[in-house]
C-alpha cells in the first residue's frame, strides 16, 4: 500500500520546479544568494529547508512562490514556465500557492483579524464581508483565532499574528503552502501547535476539503522538523544541498548539517 502511494508520488507531475535556478538578493540584485538549484515539489510532499541567517531562505521562498524571478535558470509553477507566462495566468498560478511570511506574517495592521483573512477571498471572488464570513470562520476556528476575530492585528503579539497569516494564506484553498521560518521565537506550546497543525494540513484537513497540502518550510533550526517533515535540504554557502528523506537526513555526512543539528 505504501509502495503504491510512493509510486504515485513519483509519477505525479511536479507542482513547482526549479531548474538550474540562481537567485539574487531582492534588495541587491547584483548579489547571488543561491546558485544552481534543481528541485521539484510534488503533491503531498513536506519539505524542511534549513539555512543560516542571510543564506537566502526568504529570497528562495519568494522565488518558489513566483513573486521574484530567478537571475538564471527556469522556474515552473504547475507545469508552466513563469518567465513567459502572461500576467493574468501567472497571478492565477500564484493563487494556488499560499505564502506565510516570517516575523508576524506581514499583515495589514489597520485591519481586524477577520478582515485580514477575508481580504484575498473578497478580492478574488468579489464578495461582501457577509458572504466571506463562513469560509473565514472555519479558518479562524482551525487557527484558534475565533476569539480575536474583531481585534485589530496591530494589537496582537507576533505568535498570534503568525497564525492570522496562516489563516490568510489558506483562505483561497491553495495546493501548496510555503512558510518562511514559521517557528522562530515561539514558545514550546505554540511550536507544538504549529507542527501538529501543519501535519494535519499535509494529511488533508477538513477545512481544505481533505485535500493533502504540499508544504515547504524554511528554517534556521532543523531540529523541530526532524520528526515531522519528510524531505530535507540545506541552503549553505550559495549551494542547494538536498538531504533526502528522514533516513537520508540521519545518514548524511554533510558537515554543515552538524551545525544545524548540534545543541
Amino acid at each position: 500500500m505504501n509502495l503504491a502511494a510512493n509510486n504515485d508520488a513519483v509519477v505525479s507531475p511536479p507542482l513547482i520546479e526549479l531548474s538550474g535556478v540562481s537567485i539574487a538578493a531582492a534588495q541587491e540584485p547584483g548579489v547571488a544568494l543561491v546558485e544552481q538549484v534543481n528541485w521539484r515539489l510534488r503533491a503531498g510532499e513536506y519539505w524542511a529547508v534549513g539555512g543560516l541567517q542571510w543564506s537566502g531562505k526568504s529570497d528562495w521562498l519568494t522565488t518558489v512562490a513566483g513573486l521574484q524571478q530567478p537571475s538564471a535558470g527556469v522556474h515552473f509553477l504547475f507545469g508552466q514556465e513563469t518567465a513567459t507566462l502572461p500576467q493574468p495566468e501567472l497571478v492565477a498560478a500564484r493563487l494556488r500557492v499560499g505564502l506565510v511570511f516570517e516575523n508576524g506574517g506581514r499583515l495589514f495592521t489597520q485591519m481586524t483579524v477577520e478582515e485580514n483573512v477575508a481580504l484575498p477571498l473578497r478580492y478574488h471572488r468579489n464578495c461582501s464581508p457577509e458572504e466571506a464570513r463562513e469560509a473565514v470562520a472555519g479558518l479562524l476556528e482551525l487557527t484558534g483565532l475565533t476569539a480575536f476575530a474583531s481585534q485589530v492585528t496591530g494589537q496582537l503579539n507576533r505568535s498570534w499574528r503568525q497564525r492570522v497569516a496562516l489563516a490568510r494564506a489558506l483562505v483561497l484553498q491553495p495546493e501548496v503552502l510555503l512558510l518562511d521560518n514559521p517557528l522562530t521565537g515561539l514558545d514550546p506550546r505554540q511550536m507544538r501547535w504549529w507542527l501538529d497543525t501543519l501535519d494535519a494540513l499535509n494529511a488533508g484537513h477538513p477545512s481544505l476539503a481533505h485535500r493533502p497540502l504540499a508544504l515547504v518550510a524554511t528554517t534556521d533550526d532543523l531540529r523541530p522538523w526532524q520528526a515531522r517533515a519528510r524531505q530535507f535540504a540545506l541552503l549553505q554557502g550559495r549551494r542547494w544541498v538536498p538531504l533526502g528523506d528522514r533516513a537520508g537526513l540521519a545518514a548524511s555526512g554533510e558537515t554543515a548539517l552538524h551545525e544545524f543539528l548540534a545543541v
Partner: protein
Amino acid sequence: MEKESAPPIKLPLLQGVLAVPLPQSYLNFVGRQIFHFLQTIQGVGSFALITLGVTLTKFNVAWRVTHPLIRAQVDRAGMRLLPGIAFFGLVLGLVIVGQTVSLLQKVGAEQYAGTVMVTVLIRELGPLATALVVLARVGTAIVIELGLSRAQGEVEALEALGIDPVHYLVMPRVIGLAAAIFSLTVYLILVAVFSGYLFVFLQDVPLLPGDYFGQIASALAWEDFVLLGLKTATFGAIIATVTCYQGLAQRLRLEDVSEATTRAVAQSVAGCVLADALFILVYLLR
C-alpha cells in the same frame, strides 16, 4: 619714456562669466540634479500611466472591495475637510472678495466685480487653494501610510495574495482625491462668494444682492464649469499620483519617510502649478 600699458580687454559680461572655468564639483552637482529631475519625471509619468491603465481596465474588478475604499477616500479627503474648507472659504471671502468689491465700488468700476470674482476665485484661487489644503492634510498622510506599509512589507503581502497594489492602494486614492477636491472647491467658492457679500454688506457698500450675484452669474460661461471640473480632478489626480509614487515607488526605511513626504509636497505643488498654467492657456485660447 614710460611705456604705456595696454588697456585691459573688457569682455561682455556673459562671455566673461562663461570664460571662467566652473569647478568640477559644481558641474557634477548640476548634472546630478538635472539627471535626478529627469528620472523623477520618468518615474512619476510611468506610474501615472500605469495607474490610468489600471483605473480604466480594472475599475469594476473586485468592486465590492475597491469601491468602499474609494468612498473611504472621498470621506477622508472630502467630508472630513469640509469644516476646514468652509472656514477657509469664509476668510477668503471676507479678505479678498469683500475687499475687492469694496475697492472696485470706490473707483467706480463695480461693473467688473463679477469678472474679477470669476477670474480670481472660480478659475484660479478656489481650485488651487483647495488642492493645497488637501495636499497638506491628506497628501502628506498618504506618503506616510504607504511608505510605512511598504517598509513593513504589506505591499509584498498584497502581491503574494494576487492583489494588484496599484488597483488596491493607488486607484481609490486617485479617484477619491479627484472627487474630493472638486467637491471641496465648489463648497469653498460658494462660501467665499456669500461671505464676500457679507463683508460688502457690513462695509455699507451700496450693492444689492441681486446686482452682486447677477454680476457673477453673467461673468460665468458654461466652459467655466467644465474647466473647473477638469482642473480640480487633475489637481486631485496629480496629488494622489505623486504622493502614492513617493510612498510606494521604492522601499523606504523609516528614516526616509519624512524626506519622501517633503519631496512629495514639493513635486505635487510643482505639478499643480504647471497644470494650472496649462489651464490658463486654455482660458486664454478660448
